[in-house]
């Protein structure tokens, strides 16, 4: 296995407050990795250190084999970054800004191909300020991938999207991941992490409190299931048995039957509870 990112004992303090308190992390090449955590948990600081935007206080960090604390042009050309909010270049058209950013990279994708990839071909001639919020976000992603990055950072990419735009956005990210791009994603949407990510890390108070497949994170797969029906509900390790018993009692169909495993959100909320 080759690692796109390796982190050992990462720390960072701001005026005495420990924002990142010792994080260890390994992200494989081609992996989609989601970082979850409440605001102020150290998630953005961690990602900004990996992106080469911030200096760390201590720890070993390797991103695509180089130290992001000393970013070079060569290293930057292999990385794509989609930041949280941008209001830049309102007077440029989508095609103009894509072409401009393509000139920064040694081996860029064709700007028109990228515009098509993010579904903005119809709006390519429009000025950025005329676009909707969701369209602007797609421009941000397009600018992040125009340099043909091996590693793409996405910081809360779908905040403020309507459900349909979000699904289309997920398809776009899945497509990039399918082509072999390593993707590191921060998000507040648990569903997003569950849909896109191979693995999820939950950061709280500057530390990783859980790490793993979203389906099994925090003992989710083995947790008790809740079986509910018209008139009652119970938590059980053997939901099948419970359903069979209920079926007998109701002589066939069980009214309003539901069997629910704890959602990623349930697990997440339990994990980030201050201990």
């Amino acid at each position, binding site marked *: 296995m080759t690692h796109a990112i*390796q982190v050992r004992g990462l720390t960072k303090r701001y005026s005495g407050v420990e924002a990142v308190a010792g994080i260890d992390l390994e992200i494989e090449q081609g992996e989609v990795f989601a970082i979850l955590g409440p605001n102020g948990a150290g998630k953005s600081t961690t990602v900004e250190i990996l992106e080469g935007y911030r200096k760390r206080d201590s720890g070993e960090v390797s991103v695509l*084999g180089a130290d992001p604390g000393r970013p070079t042009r060569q290293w930057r*050309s292999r990385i794509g970054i989609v930041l949280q909010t941008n209001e830049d270049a309102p007077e440029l058209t989508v095609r103009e800004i894509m072409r401009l950013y393509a000139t920064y990279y040694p081996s860029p994708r064709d700007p028109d191909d990228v515009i098509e990839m993010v579904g903005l071909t119809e709006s390519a001639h429009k000025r950025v300020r005329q676009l909707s919020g969701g369209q602007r976000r797609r421009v941000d992603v397009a600018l992040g991938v125009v*340099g043909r990055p091996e590693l793409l950072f996405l910081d809360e990419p779908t905040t403020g999207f309507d459900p349909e735009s979000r699904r289309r956005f997920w398809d776009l990210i899945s497509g990039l991941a399918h082509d072999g791009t390593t993707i590191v994603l921060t998000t507040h949407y648990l569903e997003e992490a569950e849909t896109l990510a191979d693995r999820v890390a939950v950061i709280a108070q500057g530390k990783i409190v859980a790490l793993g497949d979203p389906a099994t994170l925090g003992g989710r797969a083995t947790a008790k299931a809740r079986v509910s029906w018209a008139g009652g509900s119970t938590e059980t390790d053997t939901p099948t048995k419970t359903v069979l018993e209920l079926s007998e009692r109701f002589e066939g169909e069980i009214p309003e039957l539901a069997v629910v495993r704890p959602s990623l959100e349930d697990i997440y909320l339990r994990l980030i509870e201050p201990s």
Partner: protein
Amino acid sequence: MAETVETTGTPPAAVVSAPMPSTVRVGVARAVVETKMFFREKDAVVFTFAFPIVLLVLFGSIFAGDLEGTGVTVSQLYTAGLIGAGVMGAGFQSLGIGIATERQDGTLKRLAGTPMPPSAYFFGKVLVVLIIALLEVVILLAIGVTMYDLDLPSEVSKWVTFTWVFVLGVSGSALLGIAASSLPRSAKSAAAVISMPFVVLQFISGVFIPFTAMPPWLTNIASVFPLKWMCQGFRSVFLGDGGAALEAAKSYELDRVALVLTAWLIGGVVLCLTTFRWKNRRDG
């Protein structure tokens, strides 16, 4: 641990080994796009061009007449001075405020995350300012010639002087503006932080008030900054030898003009490369 970290990427090897685009190429591409952006932002266009034009028409109308038998009219003096102030405004003021805004709206942070070389960004800005300033000079000269009997010099040597004063002065002002853009805490405060010292500088640099009317200590302060020397250089071009008598030194001192403007240009480059911030202060 180090040996487990491998850097072989998914894209083909050719992608990794492709040469980095040159600073000049990126800088020119940025200048082209930024010029387009400038002319699409109508506020900035009006702000940059209208100010010196309005002042020229205003001063030219208020102060008519000759200056003590030198054959130079007051409005001619203002034309030369306002060309200096106008091109410095296009560099120092526009960039000082414009880049503070770019720092706030995320343009700079996004650029810092790309392999664009920082020097290409500065180079592009200087090119845009040269284009805009040249246009401004043409407009001011047209007004000077048509309304205030300004004679355009016919000697090639004068235009050579104009060219080097213009290029050195504008590039230096642009670099100073880029450096000064790091001073304001936010885009909102930028207009005040940048404009105030610039207005003061215009008053003490002989743009509005002749040096003969000013206390020496103010003239000494002005002599440190490039505007006084830029205006002096432009006066040598447009007022001719008759106007030299009006100078404090009774000469246009072109050698000193070249020296000070070059020093500011080099200082500006050093300041930009050492103090430029790509992020807001609160962004860490």
